């Protein structure tokens, strides 16, 4: 019977109900999109790192797992590392961040070929001239690029020489020495990939190197990719925390406004219910159930909207942002929406309970 009243109440003001549901949906979408993009970006980075085909990654001291903003290592280090026991090959790269989530990588294609067989080109071919650039299929799609086009990056005009299959190392690659000179880092590297003669020895090699090269961040590729998680990236964790906080506040305000208006508007109805014997608990029960229903509908709609943002990113910015569907966060985002909404219903609920019956019955 109560549910009937709740559905009737929500149906009585369809626009307000829809707006409340929509606002809660946006809150849920905001959380799920951020989490999805975080997971997607990290997973893509891990996938590209695995695609390099190396066994060990060697990075400068103090570098972050998700990005490199400088090239502090000498390009003499790879040769030095190749003298270490069981190291079969070493390749250094330089990474220069671009705007947003993009970065450009300088590499030696011959070294890269030795490491994993090289890129598989879908259009065009490898870097030949110094101003050649190659990009992966996602970047080409996002920027609508074709072989032969001119691409301006790092204040330099490049000629697009080839488009390669994504999933290996980087999205945008140029010759190593050209990028080093262009960015004022001649002879410097951002990271070094190592191949060992027997992959089962990778951990032992890493352990030995950590003792010798103190301060450097040296990981097996397995270790490195496991670091690419939200919990390991402090900045992301904090950012998600902030967004969740904002989402709870948004949910609180939306439901507070909606339920406060509803309680004011239903002063007489609440008075009627109390007059015929409804207890304060029952009145609160009705309001909280109504709020819960709004939150659940909003969460469900928010989850559906998340597929919309996913589609949008896949088609509008396939290289910059990758959004995964993180099913584990559905109940979490729903829970957050419910908490925000129920918090928003408390004050209107108390107002409803405290209403004087005789005054409420006279309310026009």
């Amino acid at each position: 019977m109560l549910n009937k009243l709740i559905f009737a109440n929500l149906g009585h003001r369809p626009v307000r109900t829809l707006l409340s549901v929509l606002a809660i949906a946006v809150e849920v979408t905001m959380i799920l999109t951020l989490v999805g993009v975080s997971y997607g970006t990290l997973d893509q980075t891990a996938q590209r790192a695995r695609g390099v085909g190396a066994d060990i990654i060697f990075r400068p001291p103090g570098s972050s797992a998700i990005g490199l903003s400088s090239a502090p290592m000498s390009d003499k280090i790879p040769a030095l590392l190749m003298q270490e026991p069981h190291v079969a090959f070493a390749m250094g790269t330089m990474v220069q961040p671009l705007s947003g989530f993009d970065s450009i990588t300088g590499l030696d294609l011959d070294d890269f070929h030795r490491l994993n067989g090289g890129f598989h080109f879908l259009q065009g071919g490898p870097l030949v001239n110094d101003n050649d650039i190659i990009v992966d299929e996602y970047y080409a799609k996002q920027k609508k690029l074709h072989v032969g086009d001119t691409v301006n990056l790092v204040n330099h005009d490049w000629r697009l020489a080839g488009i390669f299959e994504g999933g290996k190392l980087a999205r945008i690659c140029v010759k190593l020495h050209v990028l080093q000179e262009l960015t004022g880092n001649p002879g410097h590297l951002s990271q070094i990939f190592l191949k060992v003669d027997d992959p089962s020895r990778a951990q032992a090699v890493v352990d030995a190197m950590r003792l010798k090269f103190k301060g450097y961040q040296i990981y097996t590729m397995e270790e490195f990719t496991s670091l690419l998680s939200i919990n390991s990236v402090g900045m992301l964790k904090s950012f998600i925390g902030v967004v969740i906080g904002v989402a709870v506040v948004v949910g609180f305000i939306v439901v507070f406004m909606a339920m406060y208006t509803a309680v004011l508007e239903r002063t007489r109805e609440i008075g009627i219910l109390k007059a015929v014997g409804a207890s304060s608990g029952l009145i609160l029960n009705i309001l909280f159930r109504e709020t819960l229903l709004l939150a659940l509908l909003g969460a469900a709609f928010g989850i559906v909207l998340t597929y919309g943002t996913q589609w949008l990113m896949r088609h509008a910015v396939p290289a910059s942002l990758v959004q995964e569907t993180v099913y584990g966060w559905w109940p979490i985002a729903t829970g957050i929406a419910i908490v925000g909404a129920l918090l928003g219903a408390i004050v209107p609920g108390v107002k409803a309970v405290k209403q004087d019956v005789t005054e409420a019955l006279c309310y026009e």
Partner: protein
Amino acid sequence: MSEPAIIEVNGLTKTYQVGDVEVHALRGVDLQVRKGEFVAIIGASGSGKSTLFHILGGLTPTTSGSVRINGRDLAGMTNTERTDLRKTTVGFVFQKYNLLPTLSAEDNIRMVQYIGGRHTEFDASFQEILKLLGIADRMKHKPRALSGGQQQRVAIARGIVNSPAILLADEPTGNLDSENSAAVLKLMKDLNQRLGQTILMITHDADAASYADRIVRMRDGRIV
């Protein structure tokens, strides 16, 4: 042998504080209503009859004096106890019907059954009452689709669905035309006679009061 008193009021006063001014709405009311009686309380506006209605219905606390409804003393009752009184002992009919606008007529009645902790089904005898009230075929309609007279009949059905000891009616014909007023009053009389329903009706209309077994007059917060 006469029926026992179901409403016993002795020395009842009610004083409201309006700003700095004390308004004495009731100034020592004594009243007894026996079980099965149909009593009309008649008085002009400001005579205190609505205040008496609110106190007898457990909607407002007393200031002093004693009020016993079906053996329960209202003086000193907490809000929760007064809520329980409204749920189990008293049924209401208001001048403005006071039906929930989002629910159908049937669901308005069922909601009161639900609040009273009863099964939300109408038994055969209640179906008969709905027929008597002439609203059996209007149960699926929402209040806005019913005439004033029909809404008041639904309100009467709602008021008695949990078989309360007393049905309190506050100006039940105040919003109705004379034809509908007569019909509603006749129905209340029928309910009183056929079911033995105790009814206490507040009215300012002498014609309406004439349907009652007994008429009590109020003036300036006192029964005269």
